[in-house]
């Protein structure tokens, strides 16, 4: 793979500006999954970051930036933590960015907290991650931002009285389950099944779990699986068991209708409803321009998905923090600069909540449609500027 060459210790120097007297070089440690089954997720964020840098050479206030990339390999947390330690002690990075899987961000949090190195999370969506350190800010999403409104929407708009929940058994899966269940039950729904469906590393055979749900006959079946390969298998199993004909609606966070995986799904995916903050199919001028630039940079057969846009927006946040501090990065200064930062992202208006350091953004109801010979996303509803409901309602670990 061509991006393998970027691995391990190869530093890419970008943003070479005419050196002014007070220009600084800001070192950014990037921890992403560059190998294994989830390598494409790392590639998305990587491309998103680079696209922003290429398009906005003057956004960094005349400072140079250097990206030092490390491979976190799998969702286990251990390799990411080692990489973060090495980036901080040996490479002396000013900032850390990336983090696809929640356990990787969680394992790294104590390290960055002690070393006082700010961390910009570009995916990892478990709601309580920013509570682990005052130096964490998140530009991606939280599981509650999609799960909780999805619960409300399923109970009120989709008319589901009962629901089953299936989730991949690791922190964001449990988080998404809690988010959906809380929202769904608050608006009168009843959860009839709650099934852990294997771990995040390998895609399991979902059939036994789905068969159980099929026999339980709920109105809605809410599923969280990590972005990437799991989702295709979910939809295939769902259709091959004929759960659609059995009157069960497949719903979930947008992770299961990721743009880059949509075309691998069977046609029967049409009709799925998910709650999410981004799709490459959004028809807003900002997004059309973004997708066009993406294709121009990486090829016509590529598209961005919510990870790509998080990498793009994350780099925008980093550029803002660097410029605001004139290239002299401190943890407190970075968090101060990011508090209340707003940005016109391809996904719409986003901002960082000063209190929780978490993102505030629109959540859209996505409907999968079959149109022009391909599966696409249609927006059929919007919940404007959602703050993370877990922290807003101080639920569980979010209260700490």
């Amino acid at each position, binding site marked *: 793979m061509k991006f393998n060459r970027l691995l391990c210790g190869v530093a890419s120097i970008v943003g070479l500006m005419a050196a002014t007297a007070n220009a600084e070089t800001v070192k950014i440690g990037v921890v992403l999954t560059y190998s294994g*089954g989830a390598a*494409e997720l790392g590639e998305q964020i990587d491309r998103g970051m680079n696209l922003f840098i290429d398009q906005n050479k003057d956004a960094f206030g005349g400072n140079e930036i250097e990206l030092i990339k490390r491979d976190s390999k799998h969702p286990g947390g251990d390799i990411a933590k080692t990489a973060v330690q090495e980036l901080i002690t040996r490479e002396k990075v000013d900032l850390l960015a990336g983090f696809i899987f929640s356990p990787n961000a969680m394992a790294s949090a104590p390290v960055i907290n002690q070393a006082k190195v700010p961390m910009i999370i570009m995916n990892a969506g478990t709601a309580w991650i920013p509570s682990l350190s005052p130096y964490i800010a998140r530009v991606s999403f939280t599981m509650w931002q999609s799960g909780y409104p999805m619960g409300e929407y399923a109970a009120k708009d989709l008319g589901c009285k009962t629901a089953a929940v299936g989730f991949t058994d690791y922190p964001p899966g449990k988080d998404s389950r809690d988010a959906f269940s809380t929202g769904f039950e608050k608006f009168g729904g009843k959860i009839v099944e709650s099934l852990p469906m294997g771990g995040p590393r390998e895609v399991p055979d979902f059939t036994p779990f789905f*068969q159980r749900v099929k*026999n339980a006959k709920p109105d809605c079946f809410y599923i969280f699986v990590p972005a990437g390969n799991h989702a295709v298998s979910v939809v295939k199993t769902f259709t091959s068991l004929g759960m659609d004909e059995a009157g069960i609606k497949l719903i979930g966070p947008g992770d299961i209708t990721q743009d880059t995986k949509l075309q*691998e799904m069977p046609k029967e995916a049409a009709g799925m409803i998910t709650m999410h903050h981004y799709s490459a199919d959004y028809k807003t001028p900002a997004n059309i321009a973004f997708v066009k630039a993406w294709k121009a940079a990486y090829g016509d057969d590529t598209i961005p998905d919510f990870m790509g846009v998080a990498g793009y927006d994350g780099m925008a946040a980093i550029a803002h923090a660097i410029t605001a501090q004139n290239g002299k990065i401190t943890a407190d200064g970075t968090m101060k600069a990011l508090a209340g930062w707003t940005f016109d992202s391809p996904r719409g208006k986003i901002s960082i909540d000063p209190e929780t350091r978490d993102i505030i953004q629109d959540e859209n109801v996505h409907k999968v449609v079959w149109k022009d010979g391909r599966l696409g996303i249609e927006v059929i509803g919007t919940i404007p500027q959602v703050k993370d409901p877990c922290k807003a309602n101080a639920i569980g670990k979010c209260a700490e």
Partner: protein
Amino acid sequence: MQQALAATISILFDGVAYAMLLFIISVGLSITMGLMGFANLAHGAFAMMGGYALVSLMLTLSVPFLPALALAAVIVAIISIPFERFLYRKLYKSGELDQVLLSIGLVFMTTAAITYLYGPSTVSVPVPDFLTGQIDLGFSTFPTYRIFTIVVGFAMMIALWFGFERTIVGAKIRAAVDNRRMAQSIGIDVDKLFVLAFALGSGMAALGGGLAIEIIGMSPNFALTYLVFFLIVVAVGGLGSIRGAFVAALILGIIDTAGKYLWPDGGAFFIYALTVAILLVKPEGLFGKA
């Protein structure tokens, strides 16, 4: 009552479908381990090659699903011959550690090669329409593809049984498994049998790998991820026993499915507990020779 019946039917059906997949892939491993005494951890790599051969045949060369499936098995069977001739053969007399090191090395090399050629993600193939959807058998509906898998599994079992019990080649292989030196001394060309059995086993694995794409998915980690399951089938069934591999695959498939269905939090716990229990009582496996 209705609920319990539906659950039982679901578990048995899915369990048998999964079991057939395990049987088709693992039976070759059982034969090679029983016949050659070679601890071939790379067996799953041949299954993986079969899966990716199917992907290339269908997506690049536009071969229809069923012929592609058969062709993938044949191609991998042929590819496996030089492996046996030039690599495995050298280590038949070596200790198990050498064999394990060679074959696990092959697994890593295959994984790397496939990642290089096909990328690290899971792959899928378009399954023809007549194999998608469900078939209504009156009391319940079943996914067509899994019925197809079960049919293929039983057909393979019958073909193997016939080949081993009713043909001369089968008799020779059984003789070589029972007592290689005696077989050699009465003029059976055991070397040739080894190649044949190895290619057959690898071809079967490739067929299983092709079938597996639609059920458990296919990624460059396949060979390593499912290695434990293949080994359990062989260990529980007993080395060199086709019947053993069949029964062990059924037990494993049904118990694993039942565990996931009835107690999802328990995960894969059941099959490991069962494996330990069976091997404690019968260390040589259900149908193995002590």
